């Protein structure tokens, strides 16, 4: 069995209000070096099959359900 670690974030250029609000708060608290904060989702999934098939399936799952390609992008690693 393999484990898929999936990271979903808003696409570059899409407004990300959560990150923006946290960023502003951090700067206000004195962390002046913070330049950008982006918040996303992290998903772990256990999955059976050979490596190639897993990659294909996870990719498909991300595209179909986990992320909305209109606004989100995803990345994953299989370990």
């Amino acid at each position, binding site marked *: 069995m393999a484990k898929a670690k999936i990271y979903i974030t*808003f696409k570059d*250029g*899409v*407004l*990300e*209000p959560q990150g*923006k*609000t946290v960023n*502003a708060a951090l700067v206000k608290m004195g962390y002046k070096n913070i330049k950008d904060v982006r918040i996303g989702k992290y998903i772990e999934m256990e999955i059976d099959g050979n490596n190639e098939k897993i990659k294909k399936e996870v990719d498909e799952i991300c595209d179909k359900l986990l992320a*909305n*390609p*209109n*606004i989100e992008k995803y990345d994953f690693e299989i370990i």
Partner: protein
Amino acid sequence: MNNYDIEITDEILKEHNLNKEEYNNIIKILGRKPNIVELGVFSAMWSEHCSYKHSKPVLKKFPTKGKYVLQGPGENAGIIDTKLGIGIAFKIESHNHPSSVEPFQGAATGVGGILRDIFTMGARPVAILDSLRFGNIKTLKTQHLLHGVVSGIAFYGNCVGVPTVAGETVFEDSYQDNCLVNAMTIGIVNKNKIKKGIAKGAGNPIMYIGALTGRDGIHGASFASAELTEENQKRRSSVQVADPFMEKLLLEATLELIDKNLVIGIQDMGAAGLTSSSSEMAYRAGTGVEIDIDKVPKRELNMNAYEVLLSESQERMLLVCKKGNEKKVEKILRKWGLHAVKIGKVIKEQKFKIYENGKIVADIPIRALTDSSYKYFPLKKQKGIKPEYLKNININNDDIKVPDNIEEIFKKLISSPNISCKSNIWRQYDHMVQTNTFTLPGSDAAVINIKGKDLLLSTSVDGNGRYVYLDPFTGGMIAVAEAARNVSMSGAQPIAFTNCLNFGNPEDPEIFYQFQKAVEGMAYAAKKLNTPVISGNVSFYNESPQNAIYPTPVVGMVGYIKGKNKRYVKQYFKNEGDIIVLLGETKEEIGASEYLKEIHNMVKGPVPGIDMAKEKALQKTCIEGIKNGIIISAHDISKGGLAVALAECCLSGKLHNEKAIGAYIELQSDIRIDALLFGETQSRAIVTVKRENLLRLKRIASKNKIIATEIGKTGGDRLIINIDWAAKKYSKKLNLDLNEIEKLWMTGVNEYV
């Protein structure tokens, strides 16, 4: 340095949804070929969404004036007078296409947009209503859309702190690929603080406030005016992300600016963003604008003039203040953690002038973008053609066998998606914040208190696409009549309404026919009920390659309950032992009903007839009876007919921690039992009174020429309906435990939400 002087090919024109004739007119207007920035500007402003080029001539049929109208259509929102020093601003708007692509963000930004339309008028939003249409609830696609849309509305409205007080959710196959998301907002404004979207006073600064500009929804306006194709579904950057926290800050900051008299004109950057807001503000004031793209606050690198002008990033506003007041404006915004940036100024010359890197990149006469009477404006003069399908759409009642199993039919209807309880939807909306919601969701209309005034607002949003599909004119009338009826059931006098007209592709003459006739029907009803249209929105192109949606005009009605004691009632039975009275006459009408669809699987006419004089008389009877304290509860009869309405009267109190109360009913009638119990004859209501007030009610009814029939009594924990069918010497009985009905009522939709 951007080079915008590119060759405008046919392909580029097509991408911009402009035809050859429109392109040639652009050349005539400018006296030269447009560059790509200007073409983008024309494309957005001449899209249906901004120009109303197909709908404007038809919309003229609506009555828009009246003694209560302070502001009619054409502004960010309409306003009605209360004659108590305040105005009520309201408007409904669609966000159908974005919601089909990304239901959560699409619905959320839809709520955001309509809220801004209200608070830019200087009004504090006090209520949100929503009207939703989806396809078959049994499909995963619909469940996904429903879930996304409802949580999107909840996310936005709840965060901003405006209660979502009423709404409707309808499921019909025709919306399978095109869900409808219409959101309405009501606000309260001090009459002397009303603001408009005007750019007055040459030399005054144009200030940009709110969120940064990104590449969001570029071509959103033209996107909202094109049919949804596979390719469209994949189009990038067409959906914006909602930021309700930013909206809340904008709301407070804007109202503070207006309160301190720092605003000359203000407008939301909605569809076609900076372009439409600035040009419309200039047009209304008879001025022009000069904007420097370099000064516009941007979220992304290397955005060019084309992108900045057409971006539809949310939570942005354009404000014109008096020259010299810039610092004061900035100070208030800073308090709310926002910024104001001067991006240009009002000019005398009636032009839309855009600069980038010191060079002019767009130079267009304002009128060409905004004035529908301008000679090159692409107004479409169209003729509708009666659709083929209407020729054979009506059934004869005799073709439908009179049923025997009325309990079974009732059970099926009460658990069907369009009739069953929607509490799991509105439970997700904060409907109590602001502590004004006197009648919570689950009655015909919401009742909202106006603190400190002898006034309650009553409001309802309503539309029946199936009726309009089967008979556009009558369906249009009923849409207005039913929304007004809902409001009058609370005891309120309907005053005015806003409408959202959701249709397919208007270039199709058959669709255009539906549009014309529906508007004519609505306009007729509006005149008869004395309820003018004060604002609205048209959403065309709601179709997929498979089909167009049912023509769906949605009416958002607002009414007043005035006077010291502010008497109002709810739809559910209040006490045991009250007398139940049916107001109005039941006719042998089963066409277009939920019964026909759910039980006989038929979508056929004829749509129930409606006599507007009768309708008005019914409403008058209810309003009078409630005002005099005679009527204790009132509920109109609509989807599912008398039997369903009675069940709703029994059960809906339980939704708010009150008791369910049963009823014992005796009906005597000569008409078919299915029409009697489940038919949707218009202009009827179920009211309850104390025994000692029955005569007084009958007197009010007869004065208004409305038949009032005592049909039973409240009490117990069952709904019992005895039917004596005189003509056939026949009697039937429906006798069900309220708990059993409630369980069924909770299944149709709630289990999917």
